């Protein structure tokens, strides 16, 4: 299919959608998103992923002491106290509703983060004035499993992911002084929400600001007053955020990243991507005469090929030492996601070829996300780098959503142009099924990505669901003064972050390889013999039934809970 000229595809503005329609769309999007984010509640009322335990711990501390403090000796608590907005909010919610923070957070957070797709819908509609692009972009964020996981799990990043599009929207309207002031407030506020979101928003905004400055300078329209206001309102606040992180000793936890050598490496990588961004923005493209294939298969596809190559390589050989191979289940589940990315590449190519206001923002998000990803790859292929990579990747989702919306709308526009303009029966007979097939395919592909967020056991070797009987066992161990307790990584981290129980996390390895287990108390589950004991970031360790039974027989069972039909089976505390 060749797309010859701009005029051939031009579509008129209809203005069919009013404010009430928009509100209805936003409400439906909110409800869809909320339902998807609440899926973990069907399994357990406890936080989906173990970070929620340390958040609840910080909130408990705020409720009991009546103030925010920075002096905990517990690892997870001390770390989360440094960015206290979410725990404070959780404390308030808990005090108002009377539900303990541990049980309140999985209900509360999705209420907030479910507003991301409706906001992105509003955002995209303001700039594209196109309902198809806006809805598709919002649906991508609502359904996309990886994004669902991040915004449905209890982590500070979830709130950061809400503030990032807000910050970008305010930046684009900063000629209005009210939006400029609000942008400054968002940048200050996000500092206390999540450090990585702060960094990413700063990178996106600095890239956009640089491009705006170059563009205005070239056009002779650069005003020094505006530039100063931008510098004070964006990078200077970013610098103050950095000072705050130094002040609260965030480097105790991220000492590697705060090391001067690492900083120089990070800034060097950032400089290279900055130059790529400017080159990308300065490059001009002709619009017509391209086939759909050529629109997608330009040089940008190299990034996708490299990413897929690394993904496949990791299925055969560990790219990051000490982590886990890409599972075949993950490779299969990623297929719909990759197809959606191809739609996004089409959308990005369209944005490059037609005049629009949001290309600098979309490009800044893509390029900005590659900064920490590239940094993680060049600094060394270890567990810390892997964490930087997978925690950074999803900031790209905003750009992917907008590009996807444009890509799908472009295809729809092509169909409309070819089949709907003369309204002959023959054209409509082909056009209507084709349009239906397009939207059905997009929805099916989007829905097919949902398991990426909730089938984490099969796909990533990580059990994010914690059951009540597991927490009861840990609580009992603490109340009975069982210390130190030997267990696996997941239960060990919960004990460390929420219960402050001394523990060791190497029991599954010792059981598997018939090593003596020296801990006076052992917390173990039946699931260690079926799915395996979780040892993130390494792969789960499956223990032989004989070794498991032998350990139970050798020691005294002082606590047991759960039931054989429960997904994790029974849980035991052994003594002796």
């Amino acid at each position: 299919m060749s797309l010859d000229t701009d005029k051939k595809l031009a579509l008129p503005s209809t203005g069919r959608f009013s404010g009430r329609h928009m509100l209805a769309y936003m409400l439906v999007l909110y409800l869809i998103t909320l339902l998807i984010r609440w899926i973990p509640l069907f399994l357990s009322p406890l936080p989906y992923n173990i970070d929620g335990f340390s958040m609840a711990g910080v909130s408990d501390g705020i409720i009991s002491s009546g103030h925010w403090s920075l002096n905990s000796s517990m690892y997870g608590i001390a770390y989360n106290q440094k960015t206290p907005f979410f725990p404070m909010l959780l404390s308030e919610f808990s005090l108002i509703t009377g539900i303990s923070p541990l049980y309140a957070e999985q209900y509360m957070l999705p209420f907030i983060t479910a507003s991301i797709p409706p906001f992105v819908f509003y955002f995209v509609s303001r700039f594209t004035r196109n309902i198809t692009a806006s809805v598709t972009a919002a649906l991508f964020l609502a359904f996309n499993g990886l994004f669902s996981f991040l915004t449905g799990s209890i982590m500070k990043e979830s709130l950061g992911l809400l503030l990032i599009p807000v910050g970008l929207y305010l930046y684009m309207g900063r000629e209005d002084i009210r939006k400029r002031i609000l942008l400054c407030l968002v940048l200050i506020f996000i500092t206390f929400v999540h450090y990585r979101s702060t960094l990413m928003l700063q990178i996106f905004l600095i890239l956009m600001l640089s491009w705006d400055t170059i563009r205005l300078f070239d056009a002779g329209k650069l005003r020094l007053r505006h530039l100063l206001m931008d510098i004070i309102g964006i990078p200077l606040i970013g610098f103050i955020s950095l000072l705050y992180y130094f002040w609260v000793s965030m480097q105790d936890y991220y000492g590697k990243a705060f090391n001067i050598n690492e900083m120089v490496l990070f800034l060097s990588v950032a400089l290279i991507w900055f130059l790529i961004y400017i080159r990308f923005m300065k490059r001009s493209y002709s619009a017509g005469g391209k086939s759909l294939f050529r629109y997608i298969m330009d040089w940008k596809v190299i990034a996708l090929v490299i990413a897929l190559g690394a993904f496949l390589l990791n299925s055969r050989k560990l790219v990051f030492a000490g982590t886990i191979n890409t599972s075949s289940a993950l490779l299969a589940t990623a297929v719909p996601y990759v197809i959606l990315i191809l739609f996004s590449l089409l959308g990005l190519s369209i944005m490059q070829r037609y005049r629009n206001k949001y290309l600098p923002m979309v490009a800044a998000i893509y390029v900005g996300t590659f900064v920490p990803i590239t940094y993680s790859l060049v600094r060394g292929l270890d567990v810390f780098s892997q964490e930087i990579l997978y925690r950074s990747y999803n900031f790209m989702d905003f750009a992917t959503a907008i590009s996807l919306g444009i890509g799908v709308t472009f295809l729809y526009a092509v169909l409309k142009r070819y089949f709907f303009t003369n309204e002959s029966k023959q054209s409509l007979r082909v056009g209507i099924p084709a349009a239906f097939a397009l939207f059905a395919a997009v929805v099916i592909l989007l829905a097919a990505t949902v398991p990426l967020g909730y089938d984490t056991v099969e796909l990533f070797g990580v059990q994010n669901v914690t059951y009540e009987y597991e927490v009861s066992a840990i609580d009992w161990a603490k109340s009975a003064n069982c210390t130190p307790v030997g267990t696996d990584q997941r239960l060990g981290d919960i004990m460390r972050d929420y219960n402050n129980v001394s523990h060791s996390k190497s029991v599954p390895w010792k059981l598997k390889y018939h090593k003596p287990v020296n801990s006076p108390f052992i917390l173990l589950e039946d699931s260690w013999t079926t799915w395996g004991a979780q040892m993130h970031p390494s792969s789960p360790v499956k223990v032989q039934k004989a070794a498991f039974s032998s350990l139970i027989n050798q020691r005294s069972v002082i606590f047991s809970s759960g039931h054989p039909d429960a997904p994790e089976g029974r849980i035991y505390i052994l003594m002796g």
Partner: protein
Amino acid sequence: MIIKWRAAVGLMLSILVFTSTIPILTAVETTPQDVFEGPNVVVMSTVEADKPINSSVVSLIRGMNYTVSPEIFLFCVVDGMPVTVRGVDPVSFLKVEGASLLKGNVSGNTFVLIGSSFQRRSGLDVGDKIVIPGSASPSLYEGTITGVFVSGGPADDEILLPTDIIREMAGKPKGTYQVIRVLDGNITTISSALRNQNYTVAVGSGSHVTTTNTNMTYEETVAMNLMLRYSDEAAFKTTNASHMGIFAQRASSSVEVAVLGFIILDASLTFIGSFSILSRAIFDRRREIGILRAIGASNMKIRLIILRESVLLSSLSAFVALLAGFLVVNLVSSSGLIVVFGQTMRPVITLSMFFWMFAGMVLVSSMSGLFVTESIMRVSPSRLIAGFEVEKKPTEKADISEILGADI
């Protein structure tokens, strides 16, 4: 010839970048294995932290009439240069390495021998003082160089010290070693002897590694050590012997992935370079192609002519570039200029590497030629003869809402 011969020079230079770097990148990948193993050598190392290999294992293997070199490694910086320091029994080590003394001698328990490559790099010689810092424990050794040896292998970049000194500097328990190397060892016989005597050891040669008296494979041991490192710091700190496994795993994995990344980058640059040169060379001859088509040459005929010439030019360029690249790499590396991780790189050049690189380059260049020809074929002969130029891109873009439609 439609394509001018001078294009071959550009092609050759473009391919030269690839051919002169691949042997070095391959050498970087194989270096860790060369350092720890060597040709015709079987290596034994610790599997389980609480069962380190020790002098009784050495005695057992020596009793089988093998030449055995028990060793401990120290990775440190001497005079600002990264260097591998090896604790050895000098006589056994020189035998296993097939090395000989160039200068000086080995006497008593206080020898300091330096490899010939290290001597060239550092400028040190017999009788000079040398200070070696500990890398795993706060320690310092000061000694006088007693000899210079040459092995023709990676050991030439190393410093050799008595095992007892290095053991103390590496913080290892008395009587233990990190590796035991056996010259011309039979892996089956050695494994069997170790198994009979209930020793828990990893025995390997090349990619074949087996473990004795444990249900853990070598890979599982490494994985367990890494797991302890990241999830159980306290347990990890009590297991000194696990450091070596972690180092080897992290180093070899990272090096392999990084080398693969560089090879892909290198190949991409060469591909882009070759494509640009050939497309320019063919585009410059668009008038001639137009004339051929105007006088009746079919498209297939043109394609065959371009394919034949592309294959000829790229074969010639690739052959010369391969020879020149390999020659340059050999010259540079023999002068000891390429040093990575304190080891002089010894380029890996094999016949199969030559063949695959040659075939790859010819294929890529020929396909590039055909691809460009296809683009030119779309233009009419008259326009080609007139020497058409690529149309200028429009400066004013249409608004995206005109394409997508606006309904809000």
